[in-house]
C-alpha cells in the first residue's frame, strides 16, 4: 500500500495523535494506509500539513484511536491471507461500550 518510491524515502512510521487526550500512536506507515482518511492525509502529492510532518491529529479519544489502529494492524496482517487460512473474527475484540463511537470514528477514517 505504501510502496510508492516517494513514500519509501519517507519514514516508515507515522504518528497519530488523539487531540482530545494527547496520546500519540506511532504506527507503521503501511498499516495506517489501511484507512482512506489517513492515506489521503499523508499523501505527499497533495502536500498537506500532515504529509510534510508525518503526523496526523485525530479528533477522537485515545481508546478509540487505539482500537482503530488495532483493527488496521489486524486488517494489514490478514489482507494477504490465503483463502484457506483461518481469519480470527475482530468483532470479539470490540468492547460494547465503545462500539458506537468506534463506528463513527471508522466512518470518518474510512477504515
Amino acid at each position: 500500500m505504501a510502496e510508492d518510491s516517494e513514500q519509501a524515502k519517507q519514514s516508515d512510521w507515522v504518528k497519530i495523535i488523539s487531540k482530545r487526550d494527547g496520546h500519540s500512536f506511532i504506527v507503521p506507515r503501511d498499516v495506517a494506509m489501511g484507512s482512506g482518511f489517513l492515506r489521503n492525509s499523508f499523501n505527499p502529492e497533495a502536500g498537506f500539513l500532515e504529509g510534510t510532518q508525518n503526523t496526523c491529529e485525530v479528533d477522537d479519544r485515545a481508546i478509540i484511536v487505539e482500537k482503530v489502529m488495532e483493527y488496521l494492524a489486524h486488517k494489514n496482517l490478514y489482507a494477504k491471507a490465503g483463502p484457506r487460512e483461518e481469519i480470527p473474527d475482530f468483532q470479539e475484540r470490540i468492547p460494547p461500550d465503545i462500539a458506537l463511537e468506534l463506528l463513527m470514528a471508522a466512518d470518518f477514517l474510512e477504515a
Partner: protein
Amino acid sequence: MSSTHGIPRPKPKIKPPKPRGPGTNVQEDWVKLSHAIKEIQNERANQLSFEENYRYGYNLVLYRQGDFLYKNVKTLIDEYLTQLTEEFIVPAFAAGNHADPTTRGQEGELLMKGLRKVWDKHNSSMRKLSDILKYMDRVYSVSAEVPQIIPAGLKLFLDNVLHRKTSPVQEQVVDAILGQIQVERDGYTINQTAVKECVEIYLQLEDQSAKQVYFTDIEPVFLAETRKFYVAEAEKLLQTCDAAEYLRRVEQRLDSEEARAYYYLSASTSPAVKAIVEANLLSPHLDTIVSMTGSGLDAMIDANKTDDINRMYRLFFEVSTHTGGPQAFRKGLRESILSRGRLINETNDPLNGGPDEVEEEKGKSKQNTPVQALSLALKWVQDSLDLKDKFDLILKYALLSDRTCELAITEALGSFINLNPRAPEFISLFIDENLKKGLKGKSDDEVDIVLDKTITLFRFITEKDSFERYYKSHLARRLLLNRSVSDDAERGMLAKLKVECGFQFTKKMEGMFNDMKLSADVMSSYRDYLANTTAPAVEINVTVMTSTFWPTTNSGAMCNFPPELLQACGSFERFYNTRHSGRRLTWQPALGNVDVKVAFKAKKHELNVSTFALVILLLFEKVADDDFLTYEDIKNSTQIPDPELQRQLQTLACAKFKILKKHPPSRDISTTDSFSFNSDFTSPLHKIKISTVASKVETQEERRETQDRIEEERKQQADACIVRVMKDRKVLGHNELVNEVTRQLAHRFHPNPAMIKRRIEALIEREYLERREDRKSYNYLA
C-alpha cells in the same frame, strides 16, 4: 468495520458519542473550508491541515448541508477556471492570420501550452479537493445522484474552458492544433508534445453521452482538413513527381499520418486518415501511376527496380485492396508483359508483322538466310525464357510470390506466346538445338535446367498438337542423322512431355525410339544374313520406320536410284520380307545419308552427303572432268523434285565445300545453270561432312503444308471427339455438345466453335448424327 454496516444491535451501557468537533456552525465551517479551497487552488496546500478541512466537509455533509456544500464548491471551481482562462488562455489567442508558418506555429504552441497549464492546475487542485471532500463524494454524491467531484470538475472544465461562451477557446484551440499539423505536414518540425498534451485533454473529457470530446470536437474537423490537404497534395505530386517518387511520397505520407495518429491524436483516427490518404492519393490515380510514361510500372520493370515495384505492390494491394488497387496493378503487369512479348515477337519474327505481301517478301529473304532464321527462332525462345525469368524474379522478390500476380503473369505470358503462331515450331526448334549441339560442354544438370525452362514455355502453348508435329519431325531428324547427343537427354525430355501431356502425346515418339532399336537389331541380323550370301557392292544401313509413328512431311520426294543402290535395296528387301511377310517397304531417300570416297586431283576425300547428293554425284562419275551437265540433265536422270534438287545442288556447288562447279557461278541455283565436277577441290580434312543447307525454319510453303496437315488432324480429332461424346450421351443439345468437345480438346489445341459446328454438319452428312426436331440438339445414330 464497515461504515455501511448500519446501527449495531442495542446493548446496555453504550455511551452516546460526543459530537465531533467543537462547533456545529455550518456557516463557519464553510467559510473555513472555502478559504482552504482557495488556498489549494493557489497551490498553498502545505499550510493546511488535512484533518481539519476533511472534518469541515464531513460535518457539512453530516449536518445535511451536502447540497449546499456541493453547489458552493462548484461555484468556487467555476470562478477558479474563469480566472485561469483569462490568465493563461485568452492572452495566447492567435492575433490574426499569419502567413509565416513559424509564427503561426509558435502562436499555436503558446495557446496549447496555456490550455495545458490550465488543465494541469485544475486537475491538481481537483485531486486535492477530491481528497478533502471524499466524505461528500462517498455519502452525499451517491445519495443525491450527482457526479463525484472529479467528474464534476471535468465537466466544469469542458463547459467553462473549452466550450466557453464568452470567448472562442474551442475555435482557437482546434485552429492551433490543425495549424500545428499543417505545419508538420509541410515538413517543418513542431512541438509534438504540446499537441499531444493538448489532444489528451480532449481525449480525457467526455460529453453527456460518455463520448470522448475528441471525437466530436477534433476528429471531424481534422479529417475534413486532412481531406482538403490531400486533394491538393495529389494534384501537386502528380504534376511534379514520377511514379516511383510519387509512391515513395505516398508511403511517407501514410507512415507519417499513422505515426501522427498514434503519437498525438487517437489511434482510432488512424484508419480514417489512412482511408482519406488512400482515397485521394491512390484510388483515383491508380491507372495514371501504373502507366506513367517513363516511370510507371513498365519502366520500373525495365530498370529492375525491385524496391519501387515492391512499394507499388504493397500500396496497391494493402492500402487500396478494395478500391481496385490489385486490379490496376495486375492490369499494368499484364500490359507490360504483353508489350514486351509483342516486341519479342516482332523483332524475332518479322514474318508475323505485316500484311501478306510483306510476309511473302520477308519469307523470301528468309529462305535465303535460313541460318539467320533459325537463330531468330532460337532467340525468340531465349528472349521469352529471359522474360519469364525476369518476371519470375520480380514475382519472387518484389511481389512476394503473390498468387494473383503469379496468375496474371502466367496469363500474360501465355497470351503473348500464343500470339506468335509459330511458337510451337520455335520451341521445338529450341529443344532440338539444345539436344543436338547445345548439350556439348554442358553438364546434365544444366541441360535439365534448360529443358525444364523450355517445358514451362511449352505449358503456355495452347496448340499442343502443332508442337507435337514439329517436335516429331525434329526428333526424327535427330534420330535418323544420329545427331542427338545423348539418348538419356532425349528420353528425359520425352518423360517431361509425358508428364505434361500424358501418354497419348508421347506414344508415337516412343514408337520412334522403339523403331530405332528394332532397326539396329534388324541390321545386325541382316549382316549375319549377308555373311552367308553374296553381299551387294554397297553396304547399306536401313532404319525401318513405322509409317504411323514417323512424321512424313517432307519425305514425298523420290528419285531414281543408281543401279548400285538398287541392288543393295533389293537385297535388303528380300531379307526383310523373309522375316516379316506382308509388310511393304518404301524407301525414303530424303531422310538418308551416305559415306562416299571421292578421288580429287589432290587426294581422296571421304564425303558424307545426303542420299540425293550421292545420286547427283554419281552422275558425274560417267562425265569427263571438264564436261558439263545442265540442270535439266540432272533433273531428268535423277527425277528429284525441283525444290529438293535445287537445295542439293546449292549444297554441293555454292556452300562451304564446292564439290561441283556451277556455271555461271552465283549463290542461287536457276534452272538454266550447268554444273561440272570440281576435281581441283582441296581440303585439309580427310573426312568431310556436307550437310544439306539447313532449312530448319520452315519456308512459307512448308509452313502452309504443315498447317494444312495440322488442320486435317484437328478435324479428325474433333470428329472422333464428337462421336465419342454423342455415343455416350445419345442425345445432346448443340451448345452442350460444343462445350464438351471444346473442353475435351482443350489440352491439345483450342478448337473454335465454328469449326466444331462444321464437323458436326459433316458428321450429319455421313449419318453419324441427326438433327432432332427442335433443331437445337442431336441424336446419335448407332
